[in-house]
């Protein structure tokens, strides 16, 4: 199904769509407030962009520097070319420990690799411990936002899910009480966890450390109670210096939720005495994206979700309509790199208004890349027939002033005399499904110009 078809399903519930739209816009407004309070914010964006550009331009060096320093710190470093290899490596580590109970904090990469089903299939219990992630795990759904994974749900849905799975009272909808129930349930899992998996927000090449940012504290709780920590990272998470974290920690949460910083910004350099730490560096299409000059800037993304919160299309279509691990504008430029045919409709899920580019903390030219993907898709023959042929027809009309003028005249008269049911028929005028055509003017601009300007 295309993005627009999936959006139709989301839009069936009008009240919820409006709530979704307004809630995310509220997050965008919180972001603005936090951003305007930092006078040097625009300078920080430029610095972040330059640091990421530089890192990508010397990625070969920084990957090895990180590996060397991490090893020196007693951390095991693994390399995975694709999702399958990543999943294999993680399962091997878990098995080598004889472990079956895994707690996991938020990681979009492990979602991308479909790690959970792989582990479960091999007899490992894997519990997502971020509250939003746990909710959708219990419901067997995918996250619909990179920062707010359960933003598509209402508290009534969560109450229902907890009633079914955690034995809470039926009809419970108070977020405070629901969160408390999840806290009790997940505490047991934390205390019993043998291996903890985390994502990585930043990997510092000069120190070999990984940095994980959470508000709930679930990464620290999981990692520090378990025997083994496995940190899974996309190779683009690298930054050169510890001091670069000053730039990125100031940008990340302000852009994401409008908070000045996450509650926990945790730096893992060495495992605790007697424990183990592993880092899995994953490619899974990233080197390919690095080789596409028009699209490599998408690898600068720090997963703040600001482009989603601001996007008029995302807000009104929901994360699931994108059918990709990373939804929203950034997902729409990352996904065709992974599977162009399957995600061909995503670069069109945009008005090209550029709001995503304006809020991006690392200055990715998101809307320009959306436009460029459309060209690539057109050339690769991935456009739907209706779009392809209507564009061909339109380009012929626009290239011939005579036909254009006659067509305009026909439309002006037609609109006046044809019945409303025909001109607004949803079958061939989808534009008019939720809109009224304007009243046709008496004459065209060209006619007016010829008359007036002698």
């Amino acid at each position, binding site marked *: 199904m295309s993005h627009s078809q999936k959006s139709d399903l989301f839009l069936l519930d009008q009240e919820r769509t409006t709530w979704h739209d307004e809630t995310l816009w509220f997050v965008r407004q919180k972001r603005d407030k936090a951003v305007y309070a930092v006078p040097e914010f625009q300078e920080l964006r430029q610095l972040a962009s330059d*640091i990421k550009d530089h890192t990508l331009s010397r990625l070969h060096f920084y990957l090895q520097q990180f590996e060397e320093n991490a090893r020196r710190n007693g951390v095991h470093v693994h390399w995975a070319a694709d999702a399958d290899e990543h999943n294999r490596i993680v399962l091997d580590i878990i098995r080598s420990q004889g472990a079956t109970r895994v707690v996991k904090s938020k990681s979009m990469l492990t979602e991308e690799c479909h790690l959970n089903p792989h582990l479960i299939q091999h007899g490992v219990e894997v519990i997502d411990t971020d*509250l939003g992630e746990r909710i959708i795990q219990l419901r067997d759904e995918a996250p619909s936002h990179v920062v707010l994974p359960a933003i598509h749900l209402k508290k009534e849905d969560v109450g229902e899910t907890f009633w079914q799975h955690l034995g809470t009272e039926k009809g419970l909808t108070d977020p405070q009480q629901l969160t408390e129930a999840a806290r009790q349930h997940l505490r047991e899992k934390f205390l019993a966890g043998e291996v903890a998996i985390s994502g990585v927000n930043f990997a510092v090449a000069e120190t070999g450390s990984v940095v994980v940012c959470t*508000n709930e504290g679930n990464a620290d709780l999981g990692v520090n109670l378990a025997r083994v920590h496995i940190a899974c990272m996309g190779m683009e998470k690298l930054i050169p210096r510890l*001091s670069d974290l000053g730039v990125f920690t100031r940008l990340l949460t302000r852009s994401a939720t409008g908070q000045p910083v996450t509650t926990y910004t945790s730096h893992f350099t060495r495992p605790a005495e007697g424990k183990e730490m592993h880092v899995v560096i994953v490619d899974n299409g990233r080197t390919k994206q690095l080789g596409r000059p028009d699209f490599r800037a998408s690898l600068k993304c720090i997963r703040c979700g600001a482009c989603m919160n601001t996007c008029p299309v995302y807000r009104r279509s929901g994360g699931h309509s994108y059918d990709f691990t990373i939804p929203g504008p950034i997902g729409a430029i990352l996904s065709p790199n992974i599977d162009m045919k399957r995600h061909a409709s995503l670069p069109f899920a945009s008005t090209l208004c550029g709001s995503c580019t304006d809020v991006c903390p690392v200055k990715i030219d998101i809307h320009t890349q959306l436009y460029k993907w459309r060209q690539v898709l057109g050339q690769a023959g991935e456009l739907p027939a209706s779009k392809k042929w209507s564009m061909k027809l339109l380009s012929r009309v626009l290239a011939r002033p005579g036909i254009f003028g006659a067509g305009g005249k026909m439309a002006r008269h037609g609109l006046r005399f044809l019945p409303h049911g025909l001109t607004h028929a949803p079958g061939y005028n989808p534009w008019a499904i939720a809109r009224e055509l304007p009243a046709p003017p008496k004459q065209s601009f060209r006619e007016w110009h010829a008359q007036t300007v002698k």
Partner: protein
Amino acid sequence: MTSREKILAAVRANQPYETPLPDVPDFGGDSSLDRFTAVLQGIGGQVVEVADAARLDEVVRHLYPTARTVAAEVISATVAVTPETPIETLAAVDLAVLRGEFGVAENGAVWLPGANMLHRALPVVSQHLALVLRRADIVATMHQAYARLGSVDSYGIFLAGPSKTADIEQSLVIGAHGARSLTVFLV
């Protein structure tokens, strides 16, 4: 060829021409105690000024009258916690009182290195957390914070306020998985 070699070869082949790594300026900023206090309170933390450091023990007990199991480095503890402490003992801790190294005024964060945690899980497993901070130890921004750190040898957290979540309908709830409350005692 191993995956490592394959990946590195692909990176080498595909990475663009080198662009410069910029220097990050200091940017200055407000490093006042007032600012730190206001921001920390704004994110759900509590700040208590302790006029007489010798009475810290008393002030803490007064604020947490119901805390029975207290793990602490800076005041007298009711339970001894070390890196070898079993999980069941850690899970029963009501209050942990630890030494913070310095605070960051712009976001209310306190640097808590692993060496000050008694056990790495303690600050998150404890039901409540108190950090003791010297009032002179405040920096303005994260730039100055990292400059002051220089390095992170094993483990450490910039900890800003109590554990929280807004994953259910964006309603803010304090006390997700980590500490249900955070108090900074200024000495």
